[in-house]
C-alpha cells in the first residue's frame, strides 16, 4: 500500500536493510497468546513462505504486518510501502475493476495506471468490468493488480490461491513467481500448501503455537520442478514438521 497516510506499526520505525523486522511480538486474544514472542526478519526482495496448521496464528501474523491489527506487544518494523492480497479478492462490488485497482492511491491517479497494472496480470481486457462478472481467478488477479499498483516493497499474500480451482491455481502461482522476479519486492506468502511454498519461496517457515518452529532454505534452482526428487524430499520433510507423516500414509 502506498500508504504514507499510515503510521508504522510501532512508532519507532527506523530505516534498516530489512523489509520486515519483528522481535518479541505477542498478540493475545482473551489472555491466550496466539502469537508468542515471535521473531522474524525478511530481507528486501526475499520470498518467504509461511506454513502452518490452521489456527497456528499465521493469518494473525500477516494481519499484524499489514497494520490491520495493532493490539500487539513487542517490536514490529514493516516497510511503509506494503500491499496485501487476501484469500477472498475483496473487490468493492460497486466499483469497476479499474477503479478498484486505483482505490486508495494518493492524488488523482489516471486510468492508464490501472491499465498498466491490469495488463501486467493479464487482465487488461476486463478493465471496465464489474467485479460480479469476473471469474474467481480473474478476481484474484485483479486483487493482485490492486496490490502491485502500489509498487510495494513488501507484498503480503494471505492464501491468495486457496479458493481457486487446481488449474487456475497453477497459473496464478506462476504469475506470482514472475511478478516477484520482475518487481523484486519482498513477499510473505501465507499458505497451507507445502508444494506451493517450496515451489515459490527462498525460505519456508513453519509456524507452530505462535512461534516460528522451523525454518528451511530452499536451495533448488528456479524454475523448480515438482518431479525433482530433492523437491519431493523437501516437501516430505516439511510435511513431517507440520505433523503429517507421509511415510506412514504411504504404507
Amino acid at each position, binding site marked *: *500500500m*502506498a*500508504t504514507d*497516510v*499510515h503510521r508504522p506499526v510501532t512508532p519507532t520505525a527506523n530505516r534498516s536493510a530489512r523489509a520486515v523486522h519483528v522481535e518479541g511480538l505477542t498478540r493475545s486474544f482473551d489472555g491466550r497468546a496466539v502469537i508468542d514472542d515471535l521473531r522474524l526478519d525478511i530481507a528486501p526482495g526475499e520470498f518467504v513462505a509461511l506454513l502452518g496448521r490452521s489456527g497456528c496464528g499465521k493469518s494473525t501474523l500477516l494481519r499484524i504486518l*499489514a*497494520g*490491520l491489527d495493532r493490539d500487539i506487544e513487542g517490536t514490529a518494523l514493516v516497510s511503509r510501502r506494503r*500491499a*496485501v492480497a*487476501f484469500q*477472498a479478492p*475483496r473487490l*468493492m*462490488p*460497486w*466499483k469497476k475493476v479499474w477503479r478498484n485497482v486505483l*482505490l*486508495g*492511491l*494518493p492524488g488523482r491517479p489516471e486510468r492508464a495506471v490501472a491499465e498498466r497494472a491490469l495488463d501486467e496480470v493479464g487482465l487488461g481486457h476486463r478493465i471496465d468490468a*464489474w*467485479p*460480479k462478472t469476473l471469474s474467481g481467478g480473474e478476481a484474484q488477479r485483479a486483487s493482485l493488480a*490492486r496490490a502491485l499498483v*502500489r509498487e510495494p516493497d513488501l507484498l503480503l499474500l494471505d492464501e491468495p490461491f486457496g479458493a481457486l480451482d487446481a488449474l487456475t491455481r497453477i497459473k496464478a502461482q506462476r504469475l506470482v513467481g514472475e511478478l516477484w522476479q520482475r518487481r523484486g519486492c519482498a513477499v510473505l506468502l501465507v499458505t497451507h500448501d507445502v508444494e506451493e511454498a517450496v515451489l515459490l519461496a527462498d525460505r519456508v517457515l513453519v509456524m507452530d503455537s505462535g512461534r516460528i518452529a522451523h525454518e528451511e532454505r530452499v536451495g533448488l534452482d528456479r524454475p523448480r520442478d515438482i518431479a525433482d526428487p530433492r523437491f519431493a524430499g523437501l516437501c516430505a520433510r516439511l510435511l513431517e514438521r507440520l505433523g503429517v507423516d507421509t511415510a506412514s500414509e504411504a504404507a
Partner: protein
Amino acid sequence: MSISHAPPSSPEPDISGISKSVETGPGQPEHSAPDLQPLVPASTRRTRVPRWLRRTAGPLLLLALWQLLSGTGMLASDVLASPGRIAQVGWDLVADGSLPSAMGTSLQRVAAGLLFGTVIGTGLALVSGLFRIGEDLVDAPVQMLRTVPFVGLIPLFIIWFGIGEAPKIAIITLGVTFPLYLNVYAGIRGVDAQLIEAGESLGLSRWGLVRHVVLPGALPGALTGLRYSLGIAWLALVFAEQVNADAGIGFLMVQARDFLRTDVIVVCLIVYAFLGLLADFIVRSLERLLLQWRPTFTGR
C-alpha cells in the same frame, strides 16, 4: 405432465429403427432395447393465449360486471358510481382544471415532506451509523419515537402548527423519516467488514472509507428505505389532507363526501393509486441505475 412408461413387456419396440441397429451379434450378451421417451420442449406445450391477455382478462371481467350491476340498477349510484360515469367525471375534473390543481397541491406536499423526511432520516442514520457516540445518543430516542403511530400526532400538530400547510407536511415528514432511518442505519451497519478491512489496507482515510466503502455499501438498504418511505408518504398525505384542507386531492374527496359524489371519490382514489405507482416506478428506475453492480441484480 404425466410420466408414463410403456409396459416393459410391450411386444413391439417403440422405436423400431434404433432397435434394429442394436441387433446383437453372436456371442454378445443380449441387451433389450431400452424404452425411449420423447422429451417435448416445454415451449410447444404452452397454450396459445398470451400471458398478458390472460392476466388482463380478470380485471376487465370485474369491470364489466361492475358496469352491468350499475346499469341494471342493482348497484345504486350513491353507493358506488358506474365505471362509465367515473370515467366521464374524471374527464370533466381534468377538463375544468380542478383535478390537475388538486394534484399539484398534493404533489407539493408530498415532495416537501419527502425532502425533509429524507434529509432528517438519512442524516440521523449517518450520525448513528458512522459514530459510536452518535449511536448511543440518537438510536435509542429514535427507536422509541418510532413506535408512536404518527397519525396519532395529528391533533398535536394542529395545535402546534395550526391548520395550514405546516401540519400536513410535518405528518408526511414524520412518516417518511423512520423507515429511511432504519434502513440506512441497517445498511451502514451491514457493510461487509472484510471490505472495510480491505479499504483500510489500501490506505483509505476515515472519510475515504465512508465515501468509497460504507456509503455505496449502504445504498441498497437506503433505496429499500426510500421505497417504504414513498408508500408511507402517500398514506400520510391521505390522512393529512382529510383534516382541514382547502386544496388538494383529499379536499376534493371530503367535498365529494359532503355531496354524496361517489364518482368523484373513486376518481380521487384512482389518482392516489396512480401517483403511488409512479413513485414506485421512479424508485425502481433509481435502483436500476444505481445498483447495477449488484450480483443479485436481476431487474433488467
